[in-house]
């Protein structure tokens, strides 16, 4: 390679326009999610596999409801939890450990644009998840009703709440610790959080468990999609989780 031509490296500093940064960072975040096998497994394969299994094999008692009507909302909640919470937590935990966030902090990319890009990538994956889950549900005899706006509101609020929790976890623990903790929490919420089993199965613990974010999201979705009711209590529960987790994350988040 020949020498650098004079002037080739002359300073010409300046930040790119914000939309260009947002586009580039969102594309990078999406590329990383779709290229990461575990993430695709967590976001798409496990929810779809569970849905098919739970609806077709009657090993969980759903109190006489239509199986698809009980499990489609639960799996939608699981999908949101997987992408917004577990995926984000693990991603951010390793990005911190690898010094990526530190490096990005030394570029003109504002933190708000970084967070916006992460959010857009999460929403894009969720759109894909929701489409595939609903399609699979319809093929399995799911018969939805209720307001689409209420579903969107629940999913958005759930995304904010789970993202806040994911950023809180990934922003405070080391990469491998985050990986273990995020998967553990995911599993606990799957079992105890109203996704796999109706909360009534847990007896006296039901009122406490219904305050879990996964329970609020899945029961809220169930209320809209099955009974067509406006799920005020789940929306309120999710709002509290969203405010609390984001407040804690913004106080405790460490970039390194």
């Amino acid at each position, binding site marked *: 390679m020949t020498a650098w031509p004079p002037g080739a490296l002359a300073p*010409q500093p300046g*930040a790119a326009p914000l939309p260009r*940064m947002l586009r580039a960072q969102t594309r990078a975040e999406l590329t990383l999610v779709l290229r990461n096998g575990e993430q695709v497994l967590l976001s798409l394969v496990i929810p779809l596999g569970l849905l098919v299994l739970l609806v077709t094999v009657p090993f969980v008692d759903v109190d006489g409801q239509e199986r698809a009507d009980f499990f489609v909302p639960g799996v939608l909640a699981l999908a949101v939890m997987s992408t917004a919470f577990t995926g984000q937590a693990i991603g951010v935990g*390793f990005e911190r450990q690898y010094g990526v966030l530190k*490096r990005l*902090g030394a*570029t*003109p990319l504002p933190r708000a644009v970084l967070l916006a890009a992460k959010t857009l990538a999460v929403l894009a994956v969720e759109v894909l998840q929701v489409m595939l889950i609903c399609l699979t549900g319809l093929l399995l005899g799911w018969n939805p009703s209720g307001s689409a706006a209420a579903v969107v509101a629940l999913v958005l609020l759930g995304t904010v709440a789970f993202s806040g929790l994911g950023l809180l976890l990934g922003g405070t623990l080391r990469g491998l610790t985050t990986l273990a903790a995020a998967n553990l929490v995911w599993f606990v919420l799957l079992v105890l959080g109203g996704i796999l089993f109706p909360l009534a199965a847990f007896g006296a613990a039901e009122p406490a468990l219904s305050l879990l974010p996964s329970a609020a999201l899945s029961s809220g979705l169930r209320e809209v999609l099955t009974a067509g009711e406006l799920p005020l209590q789940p929306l309120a529960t999710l709002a509290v989780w969203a405010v609390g987790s984001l407040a804690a994350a913004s106080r405790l988040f460490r970039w390194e």
Partner: protein
Amino acid sequence: MTGAALEVLDLAKRYAGRAVVDCLSFSVRPGTVFALLGPNGAGKTTTVEICEGFRSADAGEVHVLGLPPRDRSLRSRVGVMPQSGGAYPGLRAREMLRLVASFAAHPLPPDELLDRLGLGEVADTAYRRLSGGQQQRLSLALAVVGRPELVFLDEPTAGLDPQARRATWELVEALRSDGVTVVLTTHLLDEAERLADDVVILDAGRVVAAGTVAELTASGAAGQLRFLAPAGLDLGALLADLPAGCSATESPAGHYLVEGAVDPRLLATVATWCADRGVLARDLRVQTRTLEDVFLELTGPEPRA
């Protein structure tokens, strides 16, 4: 001093009660290459990370291009190469460089930068599959792609093979020619000697020497003149011809060393003295101090953790 690209004044940083940086002051002239040189643990990285805004100082002042290190406007004017890491393991080299380039208003062409740093052939390899040296060079590319006025390079050539090291040095020299200020840390003396206009030698968080490479190597101890000649020459007679303060020794037999203020006159005196005795002095060498001598004198010969 106004107009300095980087100004550090009485900087102090303690970790768990131990002073890592203590009363550190220096200033970097715009458009020059400045090296912070010191053994491991001397406080180089801590100093640079305070200047980059990653850490806060316990005391003292830092002005980067006249601004406090955390001023947001510096993010587009300053390029940073951290000591390690700093890229998404799952992104390819080209994708990572293009990503960071897209944050800048007038970035360098990413593909050309990859080629010039010898990364053209691994442009489509994921970062985690690059060798350590390739990751280092990508990190350097990420630091300069936004066409900054000032770049911080923390150990830019650590672990590089000679060709990669040369490519890095050429980039640093080209940056200086184009008016970019470069602040680098290194424990490699030849690197500082080759690249830096000004050097600060740090030890245990304090400045032990500062100046240009020429000043540092010229000051202090005297020079040496060595030559080979038949054993057993009369050194007493030689000393009589030499100016006061010089010494002459023979060790081992036939290897002569004259120590003192080595100047052209001294060299001529020794050569004449040999000629007068019909002695052919072979391999006559004047040795001035290298930065390495200065460094070892100041920081001691013991290896650091």
